[in-house]
């Protein structure tokens, strides 16, 4: 399947990636190969097979958790790995509301 440069750019934008021209060409080729492989899988006749979204407990009830509080992280612990913090908050480069 042919993947255009524009499609690669769009996917990169959605994934928050900045690509060089070189990257773009390489990813277009990689994505094409991946999709070709998926097409190959599509040759199998799966008309009698139930769709399966994940392998965990498929068809069984999800294990549920009782609503009992456990220990929360201390504020300082929660923030320890943050590159920037202040006033008990994580600090991130300013984002516009969306």
């Amino acid at each position, binding site marked *: 399947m042919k993947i255009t440069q524009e499609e690669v750019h769009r996917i990169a934008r959605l994934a928050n990636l900045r690509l060089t021209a070189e990257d773009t060409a390489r990813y277009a080729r990689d994505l094409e190969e991946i999709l070709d492989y998926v097409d190959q899988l599509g040759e199998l006749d799966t008309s009698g097979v139930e769709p399966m979204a994940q392998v965990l407990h498929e068809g069984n009830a999800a294990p549920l*958790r009782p609503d009992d509080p456990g220990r929360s992280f201390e504020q300082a612990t929660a923030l320890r790995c943050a590159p920037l913090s*202040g006033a008990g*908050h994580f600090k991130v480069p300013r984002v516009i509301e969306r």
Partner: protein
Amino acid sequence: MPALEAGLADPATIAMYEPVIGLEVHIQLKTRTKIFSHSTHRFGQSPNSQTDPVVLGLPGALPVLNQEAVSLAIGASLAINCRVNGFSRFARKNYFYPDLPKGYQISQYDQPLAEHGWLDIRWEEGSKRVGITRLHMEEDAGKTVHDGYSDSPRYSYVDLNRAGAPLCEIVSEPDMRSADEAVAYLNELKQVIQFSGASDCDMEKGQLRCDANISVRRLGDPEFGTRSEIKNLNSFRFVKQAIQYEIARQVAVLESGGTVFQETRLFNTARGTTTSMRGKEDSHDYRYFPEPDLPPLVVTADRLASIREELPELPPAMRARFLEQYRISEYDARVLTSSVETARYFEQAAKSAGNSKAAANWVQGELMGALNAAGKNIEESPVSADALGGLVALVEQGTLSGKLAKQVFAKMFATGKSAKEIVKAEGLRQISDAGELDGIIGKILDSSPKQVAQYKGGKKGVLGYFVGQVMRATRGQANPRVANQMLRKALDG
């Protein structure tokens, strides 16, 4: 790309269009812990003090679904007449924003928990049934603070206490045709969800949040217009304002030959306007896919039946019962079922009073008036339901006149004492005893020869003067009906 801003249309022009409104309401479920992990989500705690590995999206942390969240969401689904699916699935909604450390929100997509519901709504001009498309479960995001700090121009502050709180999102059909209908729907939705016990729906704590989808079309046009989505509506007043503004804006755009863009707009609470968020077109591509970390959610018929059985009485059924059992008006029944607490209070007061219609009037009149003035909820009322019932009973027995009862009520509200205690302490009771009133009436007639002559001369209206004198002489305690009869007898006889 900025939308064409053509101002607002006038009412006559707006009247040539039909608005089409659908609402998406997020409701926080009343659990102790988060939807997929064990930290709490209490309101008003210090920032980032309620997190855990799942909430922070730490490597290797896995979500496990909260059983109580599922039960409450099923209860909410039944309260809005939805069909609960025996099999539903969670999905990842992918987007980058610092309020979600994982880079995706766990939600439900193509197989939601419940579908095909409805609510009957009533507003000033009419009533109708509003369809509900679906109810699905999802996790809440954290809170991002954009101002208030010295470095706010450069940094946003993120608090993840709310991240992972359990939500249900309820999506209506585009069945509403005015801002009033939308508000009526929200009111009804809030009430039934509160009664179901799924959430307190306290908007000030963000437990109920609303987005509105709005479009307009020429009257008679079978096609819907292009809709915009208004976010950030956190009070019913804002919902009404935003919808009215957006209708007038869209009509003006169309009338000036422009195009309404499908876009997300933010309601500006200070100006009462909506403004385009001008997000990138493709930011709406959330690339949903089934959540690999969570197995499907299975609700067995037994589980569903037991939740249905345990569901408390809901407002529509309660209103019908009130009409039947207490013989009150439909309006009264609506007011008295406006919250679980109000309904409970009224029923207890009616029981103690022995006269439910009178109890209904007292609850809606004096009590709610006093609570409003004091800025209190009915749960905080200094006058208990039994105490109010006791007061009403004293009126019913003729011990207190309506006027005296109001004075007694004010003292009950101020002191928390019972009506009987106050009546006893102040010597307040209605004088209905003829022997007691006889002397007083005699004195008044003796001292008012002029008025007596007027009455005897045919000016029957003077009777009111005498009743007033009797009330004055007894400090309002005389039974006016008895005084009236006795005066008439004395003067006519």
